[in-house]
């Protein structure tokens, strides 16, 4: 086998698989989005973006991502640093921390609903402690802040571990000698984190952030379980167009809008966290 051809031959099965199950459906969806039956049109996009709920769903989705992702990043970094320092029990702690990863997002939403709803744990605890006289319904339109907080908590609980595992692997790749050199040359533990860990972790941070941000724009089941329709998000609207309004053209347009946002953020993350040539480990 020609050595120059071999790599391409080896990736051929994956390429075919992706073409068949990703590229082809993607083209179909695009076709649906850009047509209403007769020829090319932007009508579907006009329809979904001019709907009064669109700015609200857009704002909610971005707001949630902006509130959740930085907290998750900070938590994941903290947890990864802690795990990395552990001598014993490292794997056990890592397994426990990654348990939420094995739970579907709808199940996660339901778990947190069981905490926050009127007959939930939180209410039992509060009335048990005498903070409230009788169980209150927290997740209503009168308490948008609590609804948002509940969704945030559920998301943080559910999806921090995906960043954690990527960052743990990344931190493990940084040679110990760099930390020792930094220590000898006067860097405090905090400075070592800022000046050694963070910059050398850029490739892993890129991967973790891209993955997490894209997932944040696709949030759906957790929001549906905890807020019903109180906190509309982009993915929820897409679902409504497809299955409630049976308008697959509009749903396809929504899907493409979410894709465009994801691509835009991916490019920003790649750019901001890029590693100059020659500056890799």
């Amino acid at each position: 086998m020609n050595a120059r051809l071999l790599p391409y031959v080896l990736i051929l099965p994956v390429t075919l698989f992706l073409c068949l199950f990703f590229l082809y459906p993607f083209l179909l969806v695009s076709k649906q989005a850009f047509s209403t039956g007769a020829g090319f049109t932007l009508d579907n996009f006009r329809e979904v973006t001019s709907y009064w709920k669109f700015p609200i769903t857009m704002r909610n989705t971005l707001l949630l991502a902006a509130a959740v992702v930085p907290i998750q990043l900070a938590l994941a970094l903290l947890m990864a640093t802690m795990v990395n320092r552990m001598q014993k029990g490292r794997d056990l702690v890592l397994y426990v921390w990654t348990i939420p990863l094995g739970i579907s997002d709808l199940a996660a939403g339901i778990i947190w609903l069981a905490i926050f709803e009127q007959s939930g744990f939180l209410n039992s605890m509060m009335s048990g402690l005498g903070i409230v006289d009788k169980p209150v319904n927290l997740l209503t339109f009168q308490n948008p802040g609590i609804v948002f907080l509940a969704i945030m908590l559920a998301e943080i609980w559910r999806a921090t571990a995906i960043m954690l595992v990527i960052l743990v692997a990344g931190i493990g790749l940084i040679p110990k000698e760099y930390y020792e050199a930094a220590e000898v040359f006067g860097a405090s533990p905090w400075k070592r984190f800022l000046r050694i860990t963070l910059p050398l972790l850029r490739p892993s941070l890129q991967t973790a952030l891209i993955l997490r941000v894209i997932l944040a724009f696709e949030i759906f089941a957790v929001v549906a379980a905890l807020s019903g329709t109180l906190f509309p998000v982009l993915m929820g609207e897409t679902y409504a167009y497809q299955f409630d309004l049976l308008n697959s053209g509009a749903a396809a347009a929504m899907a493409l809008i979410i894709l465009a946002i994801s691509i835009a953020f991916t490019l920003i993350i790649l750019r901001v966290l890029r590693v100059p040539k020659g500056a890799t480990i």
Partner: protein
Amino acid sequence: MAQIEIKNVAKRFGSYQALHDINLTIQDQEFVVLLGASGCGKTTLLRIIAGLETATTGEVSIGGRRVDHLAPKDRGIAMVFQNYAVFPHLTVFENIGFGLRMQKLPNDEVKRRVERTAELMHIEQLLKRYSGELSGGQRQRVAVARALAMEPDVILMDEPLSNLDALLRMEMRAELKGVLAASNTTAIYVTHDQVEAMSMADRISVMHQGEIVQAASPIEVYRNPAAEFVAGFIGNPPMNFLPATPAGDGKWSVAGQVMDGPSSGKSLKFAIRPEDMRPADEGLTATARVVEPLGAHLLITCEVQGSMFRAVLDSDMSVKPGDQLTLAPQPDRMRWFDPDTTLAVA
């Protein structure tokens, strides 16, 4: 002034005793080489001095001040790591200036000191590059420059040249020696390479299995090894050993030849360096086995009463394998070791 005093330092890793009771005093501005085979504890001792490792017992003082409980940065030291540890995400400039930035020196002072040390190490044209764009030799220079820029009292180096090819190593050896001598710092230099140790050190401290066997000037270590280990470790080829049996007061029988030696009741080992043998009419009878012309010399591996024995002779001698030689040891270069304690007997 940075005299270093190491008192009764020992280190255990679990049940493994890596260092036993190390005592060493290093004078201000002295260049001391810790020499020993891989695994003998050189790096561990250096890291204890640096503060990257804590001794199980014992004391370390630098400049008359106990430093055992001080962080590395408060010990007035700088270090050159074996794999350089040049930060890949920083330019050469920022690498050299790393320690200065941590001390929060003003920008122009950082710039001045970085440029000066870069010039000293001949890397001033590389300041904007990243370490991925440097050769091994250049990276090594950056690591040394980073340490020198700190203007430390003590500079610690862990096999800094071991990753370079032979030619570059020889070149850097001389350069490093010159730069360090000019910088007036105390230096501790770890190596397993005896040539490096001999050529650079003011004093060599030979380590073996977690102990310092001998600490003396290079020529003293070479001429008067304190123990059999040192005699066999230093010199290429190393010293020759032959069993010696007492033959009257101060007389010893070595391979059938009677020689003058120390007064001692029991059997000893006779030792002589290969280059301290001369062909003569009277001496040890040797049968040449392998003859290696090395240009300036002839290295002859021969057999003396069943023991392997090497001699370095002048290259205009003509010797063939199988030839019978008579080799006379130079009397003032003969050494004797006690086979029980392995120590030298005077």
